[in-house]
């Protein structure tokens, strides 16, 4: 299996603060990968390390099997759409395309121009006067017309209205279908990720909480509810991700590859949103099997 991004012991320090620390992950190639996590989890830092805007303080990261930004060839293999989709406000759309053509040896003029036409953008319009959605589309055009092997997007739709967001994501889907490239994108909005991603990585405080194919994640997680009982009483093959208790009732979100047959439970499927929130709110270093029992001391 080949990987888009492979990191081990990866860390980035700003002054005394670690934006990312001891991060290990392997994101498979050929997927559309959603990277989610709370603010400050290190998502942007991770992506900046992947595209070579930053160099790691410790550890290593490899993108498409090579060191990021290691010369023009590697830069050309990775397309990047940065957060807030920066463009040169005073340059026109056409000049942005010309910039792309000048700076990228693998530039595909046809892709770029047909996309601009398809989007209905006026090539003479200054990028500063574009709407947020149009600007994001321009940034996406620049990133894909260089014919990258993988596309990395940092919160591309965060500042867009729902319509622009939908348009952007369907553009992205079209590109993936047409060019067959690997995509890694971050977003706060799980609903957006659900629409486009087939692989999910939940990153909390530099650590991967869960990673896997979306369909597999959804089929292996269940919400169990029934009479109150302790998490330790669950079978060993059911990993508790989240639990909540009332006086009489317990609800668990468990991960298991086996079907749940216990008749005491009401078993319901989980949504991706449930799953992401469960993993994001999970303690960073959970005890996997035997968690210590809470004892009431009086």
């Amino acid at each position, binding site marked *: 299996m080949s990987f888009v991004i492979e990191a081990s012991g990866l860390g980035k320090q700003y002054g005394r603060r670690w934006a990312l620390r001891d991060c290990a992950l392997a994101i498979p190639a050929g997927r559309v990968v959603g990277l989610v996590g709370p603010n400050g989890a290190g998502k942007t830092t991770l992506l900046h390390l992947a595209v*070579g*805007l*930053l*160099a790691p303080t410790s550890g290593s990261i490899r993108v498409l099997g090579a060191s990021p930004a290691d010369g023009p060839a590697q830069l050309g293999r990775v397309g990047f759409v940065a957060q807030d989709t920066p463009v*040169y406000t005073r340059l026109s759309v056409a000049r942005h395309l010309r910039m792309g053509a000048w700076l990228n040896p693998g530039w595909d003029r046809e892709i770029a121009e047909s996309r601009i036409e398809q989007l209905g953008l006026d090539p003479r319009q200054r990028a500063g006067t574009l709407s947020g959605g149009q600007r994001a589309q321009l940034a996406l055009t620049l990133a894909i017309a260089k014919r990258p092997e993988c596309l990395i997007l940092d919160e591309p739709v965060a500042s867009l209205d729902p319509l622009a967001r939908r348009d952007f994501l369907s553009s992205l889907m079209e590109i993936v279908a047409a060019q067959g490239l690997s995509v890694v994108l971050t977003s706060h909005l799980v609903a957006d990720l659900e629409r486009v991603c087939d692989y999910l990585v939940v990153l909390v405080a530099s650590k991967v909480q869960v990673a896997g194919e979306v369909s597999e994640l959804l089929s292996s997680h269940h919400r169990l509810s029934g009479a109150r009982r302790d998490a330790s009483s669950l079978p060993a093959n059911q990993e508790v991700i989240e639990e909540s208790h009332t006086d009489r009732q317990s609800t668990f979100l468990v991960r298991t590859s086996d079907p749940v047959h216990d008749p005491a439970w009401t078993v319901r499927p989980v949504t991706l949103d449930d799953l992401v929130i469960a993993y994001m709110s999970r303690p960073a270093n959970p005890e996997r099997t035997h968690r210590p029992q809470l004892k009431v001391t009086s």
Partner: protein
Amino acid sequence: MIRFTWLQFRVQAGVALAALFAFAAVLMVTGPHLASLYNASRITGCRGGSCVNAASGFLSRVDATSPYTLMYTLGIGLILAAPVITGIFWGAPLIARELETGTCRLAWTQGITRTRWLVVKLALTGLAAMAVTEALSLMYTWWADPIARAIGHGGTISSIQFTGPFGLVAFATHGIAPLGYAAFAFTLGTATGALIRRTVPAMAVTLAIFAAVQVAVPLWVRPHLLPPDQTVVSGPSFFQAASMSVGTLTATTVPGQPEAWILSSGPINAAGQPVTTAPAACLGPPPATGKGAPANLGACMASRGIREAITYQPLSRYWPFQRIETGIFLALALALAGCCFWRLGRRRT
């Protein structure tokens, strides 16, 4: 990258070219007239003392009938300002604006390395800044040549303060020194922009540092670039000639060394000790005319064994001084450019 740099730079380059062309047009139109006034004066082929009169006559005629003496002063101001203007408006935003607006994340993820991006940006814009300043200086030197020659012949005029090629302003606006200042100011702007990461504060800091350096270098650095010559002048003729200012007893010219740069001068007595004031006996009653020194001051001082000690740099060192100072500023510019590369290193952004 060269084409992209041009694409981003073309507006500023256009403004600079328009300014250069306007400046050139004014000089081209007025230059021949100024030269014809010079040719019509009797300076060419003059001898001895008549030269000073002819030169002063030419200068006052120019002053009375044309705006050329004003242009002479304004031109100098423009050449002095050009480096710091390019430093502020070209240098400071070069990196700072990319960092400020986040477009660096777009630029540095295209298919060229960040080093190449910076090399091309610095080289192209920096060379343009140097070319603009030096072009201004060269055009101006050509245009002002008649005035400079008249001054060289000893002509004086109240509206122009000219203290020889080593004068603070003259040295900084002629020769190759403007090249060094332009390179320094531009890279200073770029480096402060890279360090502060905000355009407007970087502009202010650039202006402040450049102004401080332009004051500090001629005052405290330039005099020490080469060891000075020293001479001791004696005799009534020196004290009587217009070669010293009476009030401070300092020399204004060095005998036999026209247009030398006087670093320090003062009278010393027969024992070699500095004399701070002229002996009271020599000053005598104030002259009736109220102008100049008593006629006998020179003879009186000479008879008491008082001589004038002068520390100076001869005119023959003008180009060595120009080369050394330009070299220093070019070296500073290189160091500042290196600072930009260091600051934009991927470990530090």
